[in-house]
């Protein structure tokens, strides 16, 4: 691994990594059963440098912002490298957002370059939101059909500058990425992440979960997500490891990839992990009674032997068939993006497949705590990573309070939002809005949220303010969307839902046409953003002098109602 303490920027470290590991494989890309390409670090450089040169020739300079909207693939990392090499700041956006949402964030970020793939550009280019992104000058589109109308964009594959690009150095406090942790429709929260944030996080994470040449990381979580950016790009590259991309994320092809590419690490969201568990359990249940008995005995032996720490060699011997299905080389499944239920974590650990459960926020530079497996604990999110100061604010008698974090990995602030930044980072401490406590062994246990938001099992952060636009001009007196847990706090991180609080006009009833209107609007939202119930409140919403709803005060008023009867089904 490179000694990252010597580096000031992501671009500088990546530049040296390409020279340090020229013959190691860095990228494998597969589409279904077909392997599309396999690149060494030397070949990666041969692809990335002409792109960097072309960007520079087109006038891209230090601190310019370039956005990537792409599914996981080689060209994502090649493009990102070219941006960092040229001193730019990267704006990785979620390819699953709607074109309107993407344009909104492109405009907010001030990106002058957009790198995207043809099917996404086809939708973006015809969206009315395009007019708003006035700073955008260059659009590069990958893999367009030969005669496609590119609507002003250029072909990524043809953008190759002649000669060597100039490396543009950046300081460790300069902005490396603007990562949107939420905020489409409401106030976009663009986390300004510095080069230091990433360098520090990389050192901390790889001290517990190391990469080395030969390691293969299966990249499934979107690379715009903080976790995959770190463990599916920057981490493995600074260690000479390889990243495997799949262009199709159908479960059967993902399953095949494990044995085919001998995967070492993979990151998953809890939903996918639970699905894997379900699939395995079905297979175990189908075993004949005799085989089942033997299998259970082997699991029990493995469980006893690995109580103190994982013993991958022994587990692979004992439970050979299970491990072979995962390729026989899998060391750890990294799970993130949302809370994972302890029984799922325990299920995998008992099979000899440790799950690195942790807790993090984009604002904190990915992970805050992680389970170091010494020993494995399913009931916590682990201990703070090296360099992380974590404390519990105003703890209740049971020790539960708001989790606050101070570290070199904490973002420098939200882009263009000084007030929001000041509310979030207080005296150098990041207020996470999550509730938790430390146990006697220093493990953090999470137990709910203080903030008005939900996180789905697919790792999506949903802020109620962001989805209120869908209910704009609803024919009622006023409305507000809340996370149910915010109104009626419960000590849980699972099954979180959104509710729509309605104040009807005098004499108005919740009629079928009104319900249908609400349902129709709700259905236009992406499935994970939908509300799950309605709460009627027969009083004026508390508002500020500028007529904004006082959400805290409104939540308190609604909280007087019994949530079992107050929430009406849609």
């Amino acid at each position: 691994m490179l000694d990252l303490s010597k580096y000031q920027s992501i671009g500088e470290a990546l530049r040296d990594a390409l020279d340090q590991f020229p013959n190691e494989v860095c990228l494998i890309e597969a589409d279904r059963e077909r392997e599309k390409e396999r690149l060494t670090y030397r070949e990666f450089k041969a692809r990335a440098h002409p792109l960097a040169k072309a960007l520079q020739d087109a006038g891209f300079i230090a601190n310019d912002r370039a956005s990537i909207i792409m599914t996981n693939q080689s060209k994502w990392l090649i493009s990102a490298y070219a941006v960092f090499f040229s001193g730019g700041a990267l704006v990785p956006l979620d390819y699953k957002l709607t074109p309107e949402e993407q344009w909104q964030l492109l405009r907010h970020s001030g990106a002058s370059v957009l790198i995207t793939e043809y099917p996404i550009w086809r939708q973006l280019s015809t969206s009315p939101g395009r007019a708003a992104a006035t700073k955008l000058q260059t659009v590069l589109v990958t893999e367009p059909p030969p005669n496609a109308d590119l609507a002003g964009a250029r072909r990524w594959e043809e953008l190759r500058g002649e000669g060597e690009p100039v490396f543009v150095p950046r300081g460790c406090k300069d902005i490396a990425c603007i990562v949107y942790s939420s905020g489409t429709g409401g106030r976009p929260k663009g986390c300004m992440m510095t080069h230091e944030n990433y360098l520090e996080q990389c050192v901390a994470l790889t001290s517990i979960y190391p990469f080395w040449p030969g390691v293969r990381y299966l990249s499934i979580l979107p690379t715009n997500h903080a976790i995959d950016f770190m463990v599916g790009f920057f981490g493995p590259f600074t260690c000479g490891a390889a990243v495997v991309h799949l262009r199709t994320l159908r479960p059967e092809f993902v399953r095949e990839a494990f044995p085919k590419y001998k995967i070492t690490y993979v990151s998953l969201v809890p939903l996918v992990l639970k699905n894997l568990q379900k699939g395995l359990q079905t297979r175990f249940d189908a075993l004949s009674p005799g085989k089942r008995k033997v299998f259970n005995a082997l699991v029990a032996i493995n469980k006893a032997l690995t109580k103190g720490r994982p013993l991958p060699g022994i587990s692979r011997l004992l439970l050979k068939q299970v491990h072979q299905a995962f390729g026989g080389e899998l060391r750890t499944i990294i799970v993130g993006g949302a809370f994972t239920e302890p029984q799922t974590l325990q299920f995998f650990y008992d099979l000899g497949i440790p799950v690195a459960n942790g807790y993090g926020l984009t604002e904190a530079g990915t992970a805050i705590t992680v389970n170091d497996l010494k020993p494995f604990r399913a009931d916590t999110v682990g201990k703070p990573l090296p360099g992380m100061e974590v404390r519990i604010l105003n703890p209740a008698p049971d020790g539960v309070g708001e989790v606050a974090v101070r570290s070199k990995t904490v973002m420098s602030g939200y882009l263009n939002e000084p007030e929001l930044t000041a509310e979030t980072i207080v005296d150098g401490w990041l207020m996470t809005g999550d509730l938790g406590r430390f146990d006697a062994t220093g493990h953090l246990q999470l137990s709910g949220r203080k903030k008005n938001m939900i996180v789905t099992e697919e790792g999506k952060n949903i802020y109620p303010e962001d989805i209120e636009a869908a209910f704009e001009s609803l024919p009622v007196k006023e409305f507000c969307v809340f996370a149910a847990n915010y109104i009626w706090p419960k000590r849980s991180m699972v099954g979180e839902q959104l509710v729509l609080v309605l104040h009807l006009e005098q004499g108005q009833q919740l009629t079928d046409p009104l319900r249908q209107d609400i349902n129709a609007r709700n259905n236009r939202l992406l499935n994970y953003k939908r509300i799950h119930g309605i709460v009627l409140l027969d009083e004026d919403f508390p508002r500020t002098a500028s007529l904004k709803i006082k959400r805290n005060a409104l939540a308190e008023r609604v909280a007087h109602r019994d949530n079992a009867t107050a929430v009406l089904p849609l």
Partner: protein
Amino acid sequence: MRTLEQTTQEVLDLAATHFQLPAGSLAPGDDFFKKLGLDSLQTLEMLSRLENHFGIELPDYEVQGVSDFKTLAERIQSRL
């Protein structure tokens, strides 16, 4: 060559079989996330079934953001 109506009907029948629902219980305009309570992963599994049935490949981007059977059938039809 199938008509769009035929394709739509086959999509509905297949989805009903896949999720063990009575035949005829699904309609073209149904939102499969809501009607079937599917998550993104189950949707991908259903797509694989449909691909095998129609003998086509549906790239992930083609079905991004699609949540009703009618639109799904249209995307399939365009690749038949």
